């Protein structure tokens, strides 16, 4: 099922706590909005993680679950008080189940302007091969 959103949403969806795990950090945790697209030989996951940089993002791959964890320190400027708030700052967490056709050793991740991009190249065995038809 593909979900397509054409407008920019401001509402952040919070991670629902599963029964057997609890967060150890005392701040909110959100599910980052993500786009997933496929170009020729790779799958690209694009996720919004505003406030996180290359040092505060962790991408882990365990078995076939790819998990993104981004830690964002909430700001509290000295001497200021929050007069008006429309959004909350918190961590981001999201997991994706990868299919077997991804080449696990060649996954790359970049972050720019609060957007994380994961490049998941397809394994050579999964690439489409053209089979030439000979006249027989």
């Amino acid at each position, binding site marked *: 099922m593909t*979900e397509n959103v054409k*407008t*920019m949403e*401001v509402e952040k969806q919070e991670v629902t706590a599963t029964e057997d795990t609890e967060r150890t950090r005392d701040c909110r945790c959100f599910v980052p909005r993500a786009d*997933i697209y496929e*170009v020729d030989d790779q799958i690209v996951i694009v996720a919004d993680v*505003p406030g996180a940089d290359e040092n505060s993002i962790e991408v882990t791959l365990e078995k076939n679950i790819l998990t993104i964890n981004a830690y964002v320190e909430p700001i509290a400027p000295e001497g200021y008080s929050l*007069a008006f708030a429309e959004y909350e700052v918190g961590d981001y967490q999201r997991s994706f189940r990868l299919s077997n056709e991804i080449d696990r050793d060649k996954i790359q991740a970049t972050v720019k302007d*609060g957007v994380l991009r994961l490049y998941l190249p397809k394994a050579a065995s999964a690439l489409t091969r053209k089979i030439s038809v000979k006249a027989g």
Partner: protein
Amino acid sequence: MMYRRYRLSPMWREMDRLQREMTRMFDEFSPFRLRVAPAYPALNVWSKDDALLVTAELPGVSSEDIEVSVVGETLTLSGERKPDELKNGARYHRQERGYGKFSRTLQLPFPVKVEDIEASFRNGVLHIYMPRAEEDRPRKIAVKTA
């Protein structure tokens, strides 16, 4: 003060109950009822006596595409979030991130010193620092003993 007590018919008691029920129902749903389409981007405003700090999360917008302007006591924030340029043959499996132009105006609580406004954009988060105009700052008045 004296209250005169009337004998209420059971019908009125029932009407009162219905009214309470309705009020409760409206209260319960009011957050949804009052909710309007939220404007993009969401803003947080921090304030102190002599300055304001406005922050906004704008992931995927490049700093050249953000425009901040202050006219009088109104802050306008506008810009555009561009979609990824995709090669031919690319197809989306899932698309949750929107894109497009946005514009937001905010009424400031006090006049600001326009020449000293500083805006920075880091990791997709915009910070706009606005010091309060000198002539508008609160002044301490010494109380003299007569």
